[in-house]
């Protein structure tokens, strides 16, 4: 449904029709059909919603590689993107806040991208328009949605967004991250920091546990008798062996994790009294970081392309929505298969999407999709670990083909080099998104 009729439907997927052929058909039929945006504007139009790891990369690659042949508009409400990646390092005191902030200026200046600072609030898939909170709408030939995540209401009893200042999630970076850091630093001597960890699937599988490491790093210096409590609904977590080895080595006795076998999946929070109730037992805490269950950013649901689990299923070869071939979904919001929800993954998917979009709207070559991901985590000063994998597109999903992970017991030299590598990655991916 919603593919449109006649001429419109020819824009679906890579069906072998060149843009010129489509135009010819469109001109012939233009008396009968309302002209697609491509005729009105002279250039095919791409609208990208969300200027994060997926959206900024896609906008930049489509605009850059089409050399002006495609009109690209990026819709993003914030003027500066504060990356979740490395936001834990900011909490740990390894990065300045300003160093994880990025402006959209170069995307406009260097690539002619029209950056609109607004929220997308609706998608009309028949008319192929995106409505903006500030009024007005943008028409598109292809729409790219990379809105990241939103939280599932009611997933942690006692918590909703109105409580995010007392019990921050800090799982969208920015003022939430600053707030959580300040609360950790303000903990009384010997106080308790509690994290309510999310169920699968969620953005950045090692993210909560890297955060625990960074919180421990800070408390060990400033408040060494403080305790860290993790309430976790999952039996296992990413890089578990590496994290637990590191916590034992650097933060022995400080961190306690309560998994589902001890009620980690039966939690209620009471923000007013700063209490966390675990399987009926009340714990008083001093800082509480609630990371709720997650789903695709709301605009994906408003566009009507999400499944019951709240994610947007996509075709692996092109990142097109399975519900509408005119829409591509990237990053955390997509349900694509084996890739973890990470900035690296979103960036990788964006390049495949950009190639597919250019292929569909111009005559550029299309190569087989390939994807990769590496996630670095910092456990303590100069103690970095990583996990990575390669992926290919199958008709069913993005499928993992190969991978590696850091080993327990690695030398300090290897761990330091791994950390330094992560600095190089951060610097490169930032440029790959925003330069």
């Amino acid at each position: 449904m919603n593919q449109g009729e006649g001429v419109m439907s020819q824009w679906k997927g890579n069906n072998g029709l060149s843009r010129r052929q489509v135009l010819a058909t469109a001109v012939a039929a233009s008396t009968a059909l309302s002209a697609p945006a491509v005729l009105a504007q002279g250039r095919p139009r791409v609208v990208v919603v969300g200027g994060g790891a997926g959206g900024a990369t896609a906008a930049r690659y489509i605009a850059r590689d089409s050399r002006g042949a495609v009109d690209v508009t990026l819709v993003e409400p914030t003027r500066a993107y504060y990356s979740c990646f490395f936001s834990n390092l900011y909490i740990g005191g390894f990065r300045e806040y300003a160093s994880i902030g990025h402006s959209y200026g170069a995307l406009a200046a260097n690539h002619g991208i029209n950056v609109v600072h607004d929220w997308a609030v609706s998608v009309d898939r028949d008319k192929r328009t995106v409505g903006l909170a500030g009024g007005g709408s943008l028409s598109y030939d292809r729409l790219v949605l990379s809105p990241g995540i939103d939280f599932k209401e009611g997933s942690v009893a006692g918590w909703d967004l109105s409580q995010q200042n007392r019990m921050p999630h800090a799982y969208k970076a920015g003022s939430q991250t600053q707030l959580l850091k300040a609360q950790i630093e303000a903990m009384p001597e010997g106080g308790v920091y509690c994290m309510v960890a999310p169920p699968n699937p969620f953005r950045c599988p090692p993210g909560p546990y890297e955060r625990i490491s960074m919180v421990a790093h800070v408390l060990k210096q400033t408040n060494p008798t403080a305790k860290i409590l993790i309430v976790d609904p999952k039996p296992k977590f990413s890089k578990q062996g590496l994290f637990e080895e590191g916590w034992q080595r650097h933060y022995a006795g400080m961190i306690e994790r309560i998994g589902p076998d001890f009620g980690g999946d039966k939690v209620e929070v009471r923000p007013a009294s700063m209490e966390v109730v675990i399987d009926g037992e009340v714990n008083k805490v001093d800082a509480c970081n609630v990371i709720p269950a997650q789903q695709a950013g709301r605009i994906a649901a408003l566009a009507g392309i999400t499944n019951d689990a709240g994610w947007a299923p996509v075709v692996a070869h092109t990142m097109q929505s399975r519900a509408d071939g005119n829409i591509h979904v990237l990053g955390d919001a997509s349900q694509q298969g084996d890739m973890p929800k990470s900035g690296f993954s979103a960036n990788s998917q964006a390049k495949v999407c950009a190639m597919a979009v250019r292929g569909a709207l111009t005559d550029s070559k299309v190569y087989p999709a390939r994807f990769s991901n590496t996630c670095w985590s910092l456990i303590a000063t100069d103690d970095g670990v990583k996990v990575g994998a390669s992926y290919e597109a199958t008709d069913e999903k993005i499928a993992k083909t190969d991978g590696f992970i850091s080993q327990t017991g690695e030398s300090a030299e290897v761990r330091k080099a791994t950390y330094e590598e992560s600095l190089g990655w951060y610097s490169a991916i930032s440029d790959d998104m925003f330069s």
Partner: protein
Amino acid sequence: MLALVPAGGAWSADAERGKALYAQCKRCHQVGDGAAHRIGPHLNDVFGRAAGSLEGFRYSPAMKAAGAGGLVWTAAALDGFLSEPRALVPRSRMSYAGMKEATDRADLLAWLRLSSGGGPDRPAAEPTATPEEYGLDPQLLTITGDPDYGAYLAGECTTCHRPDGGEEGIPAITGWPHDDFVIALQAYKRGKRVHPAMQLVARRLSDEEIAALAAHFRRAGDEP
């Protein structure tokens, strides 16, 4: 054994040992008669030269600035640089953590002094990494890659390697000579160079794809 006592005379150095240590530098630098720029600049007549000053090599802005600011490659400066390159020139593109032992550096510099200057002792330049070193088929170097395909494949590289050739923690690869690029990736692909992430990337690249990437990054080096 060649021994050499520098002007300061505080230590005696073993140039023969230095030659063996130079094997680490050889991946990127040539020195001796016929030496040319490879991944790094050639090292002929390096003693006494201003940093970042050779024609025809794309230095990092940091290295150029260091030279403009008065850094000259005296033996002492080279010794300091080798011990930890980025302590002396932060954001240098030289991808080398440092040579910790002072005697190693002294030996290396002794050999470099013999090979770098003019005169009868100067050996012919050895090639940087060769296919034979890794047991690779030299035919791999003759494949002509499609730089446009390379440009698409390079999307996987630029998530970690800065395309402008700047570097921090991860080596710059823009502008690398074709052969050096192919040899490095082929060596990762076959597990002869060790790095889990690079082996992962290289394992699924075909010989044609490696050639395509080499062509792309060579071309990218010529862009302003």
